[in-house]
């Protein structure tokens, strides 16, 4: 979809023709003043955007219709309060939470963690630290390593103490990924990408990875008595 329907742009990209404001900023500046918005190529919404929207809509309908034609929505027997299935599972998007509930006390897993996650999500944009998005290892590498390892140790101890391996192993993987740029001086490809990732991006990445892993465990790998089973 890279093709843009040709139409006349009225904004010149020739730098000499259009006068520009020039300013000099000190090194440490909030990001909103860092870059001047570069004039970009603008196109007409109609039809360029609209046609994409229509295609998108059609594709969404096609996909959903196709699934619906071949996969029937589940329907079990009439609800019976006397018959508790083993295990009783929440809808799949809450199974990560239910998996946590298995390891931690309900107040922590069922109330504190979801509320903290929502609060964390809400305050992300107001949380000014590292807003310039320095890479994690850009400054004071040793101190970062100590803080990072300390945090990881705490998370590991808590998760192992509560036998929450669904937390421990994803955390370990993320921790090891974070460490890669510290030991490998390579700055290209994936490692370069890792090097550029800021702390907040790592944290959100950790959260997403954990949510996905826990949800998958809860959906496919948990059977009677919330014990481990194989999905096949």
């Amino acid at each position, binding site marked *: *979809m890279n*093709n843009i*329907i040709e139409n006349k742009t009225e904004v010149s990209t020739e730098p000499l023709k259009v006068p520009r404001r020039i300013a000099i900023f000190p090194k440490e500046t909030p990001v909103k003043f860092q870059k001047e918005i570069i004039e970009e190529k603008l196109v007409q919404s109609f039809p360029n955007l609209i046609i994409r929207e*229509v*295609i998108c809509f059609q594709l969404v*309908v*096609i996909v959903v219709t*196709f699934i*619906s034609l071949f996969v029937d929505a589940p329907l079990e*027997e009439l609800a019976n309060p006397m018959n508790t299935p083993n295990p009783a599972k929440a809808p799949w998007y809450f199974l990560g939470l239910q998996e946590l509930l298995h390891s931690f006390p309900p107040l922590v897993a069922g109330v504190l963690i979801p509320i903290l996650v929502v609060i964390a999500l809400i305050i992300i944009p107001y949380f000014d630290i590292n807003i310039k998005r320095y890479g994690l290892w850009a400054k004071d590498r040793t101190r970062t390593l100590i803080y990072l390892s300390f945090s990881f140790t705490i998370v590991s101890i808590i998760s192992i103490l509560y036998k929450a391996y669904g937390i421990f192993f994803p955390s370990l993987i993320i921790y090891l990924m974070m460490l890669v740029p510290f030991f490998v001086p390579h700055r290209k490809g994936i490692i370069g990408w890792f090097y550029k990732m800021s702390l907040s991006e790592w944290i959100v990445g950790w959260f997403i990875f954990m949510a996905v892993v826990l949800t998958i465990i809860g959906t496919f790998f948990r059977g009677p008595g919330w014990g481990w089973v194989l999905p096949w």
Partner: protein
Amino acid sequence: MSKIKIIYAVTSILFLLLLAVSPLKEIFKDWRNFQNSFNSYTDSFPFKVAKVDNGLKQIWNKNLGIIDRCITCHVGLNENKLSNAPQPFTSHPKIYHDNEKYGCTVCHDGQGLSTKYEDAHLPTEFWDKPLLPRKYIESACYRCHDDLSDKFTPLHNKGKELIEKYNCVSCHDLPGIPKQYTPDLNGVGTKIKNKQWLIDWLKNPSLYATNARMPNFKLSETEVTILSDFLFSFKERRNSQSLYPLPEYYNTLKKDEDFIKLGKVSFSEARCISCHSIEGKGGKLAIDLIKVASKASEKWIYSCIKNPKAIMPGVEMTQFGFSDKEAAAITAYIESEFVDWNINEDEIQNIKPVTGYYEKGIEIYNKYNCGGCHKLDIKEIKENKGPELTTISNKKLYQIEWGKSNLKHSLYEYLENKLETPRAFGENTRMPEYKFYKEEITAITAYLLAQRNNEVPQNYLVRKNKVQPFKPQGVIGKTFEKYSCLKCHSVNDYGGKIAPDLAKVGSQLNRDWIRKYFNIPYSLRAIVEERMPKLFISTEEVEMLLDYFESVFIDDNLDFKLNLTEKPEELEKGKMLFKEKYGCQSCHIIDGSGGYVGPPLDNVGERLKPTWIYSWIKNPQKYKANTIDPKTGMNEEDLLLITSYLFHKRSW
């Protein structure tokens, strides 16, 4: 043309196509095919069958909470001409209920809401009540009815009998099923001669007697040893009478041929084989006697013959009025005849009891709920019943412990398998093995499937009047009890079904005849071997019973005057009517010739009272609902003449 436009074109076509095609799925539903093929199928018929208009059909019964869409495919249900058509077009066999009114699932189960074959009929994962197999359909009658005759629900009624016979109620609660007599085990150590017998019996009762009612508990060797030691230790007869001592002359006379012969005569005179069998021949009411002398002690056999109810409380065996000598002689006869010749007397040794057998014995006794059948008067015995079956048919599949079995999930499959191999569902099940025949399993399952809570509204229930129990008090009650009259006879349908109902016997039979019959019972019908055993009732007891019969077992409607004639020519006319007009002799023997279906009528005047003869001929079914004696509808004059003729058939 740019790439985006091509994409747009492709998605647009796909989009429109999919939206157009999706609803088509609806058109290819199975039920539409069935309706179409029904119409083309019936076109080929020589006669006219009403066409079905396309569309979904359902029966809705708001009271029963039923919405049944079965008739969407089963379109020929009420079309009599289609009785041989293939399913789903077959017409419904004639029944007493209008299916338009009652719906289908009320009897058949299955998922009435469904319009898909698999979902409607088969056991599916999320539907507890798949279609009831045809053989079990009669158990559905009991959702509204509570008592139906063998004509309607033969299998169910058979199952009920079996459940009664195998004494299922000793472990499972089931309403309306009486408990069978089972011997109590107080003093069993004085009854059983030989511990090895007990061991063999406990291992597998059916090896000793193929028709043994006690099931195989599949006890381990150690359990058997402990239990036999435990039981053998009960030499005292706590809380029940001790055995009668054998008369002193017994030991000297027991090998005497005349003495044994006296026993044999008494044995056959009392017709012990009415109830007992000997090597399978004879009655089925009591145990086979063939090896009894090798199992039970002499003293016990003697006591049993003398007064069974004293040493086996609750037993149905009647107490014969034998003298001590007769009883001793019968004992000697049994000792001489009914012996297991395979047992080598020398091998019978007293095996030493294992240590701690008493406590462990109680544990095993309680574990298998032996106390459910066999009373043992020690305080450690606890009731340890199996699950109650009162509402077994309401049981949801999730409530059933399936163990490791991989059955198709339905209740009837579970019941069948449970009855066949009771221990198949998990390690801790303790139900014993009965070795039922397939038909027995089917019958019991049919009965159990009828055991459920009422789910239908009150006004759908059909409840029969329950039979009133007959429980006379005082000395009559004790006499009835002593001779177990109600084991064979009934009073207003309460009691045994073997012999005639006694409720009107005072209006039916002559006192003198009954008195004689007590003394020498015989079979009224020449072709029927069964007859009442001779009970050796004392004269006083007989007279008391006769008084009671004539004052209580009376039908007041039979208390009227009959103008019977004594004139020979009119009696001759009655005879002609009997023999020629009504052809009674085709069934009844009189004057030495006639049929064998009904009882012989020579001397009938001695047996029956004239009002009874008169009323019976008038309407036999009024007095015995299932008799085949035809209601001839003869006129009053003929009736009186025949009654006079028959009444005249007497020696006095």
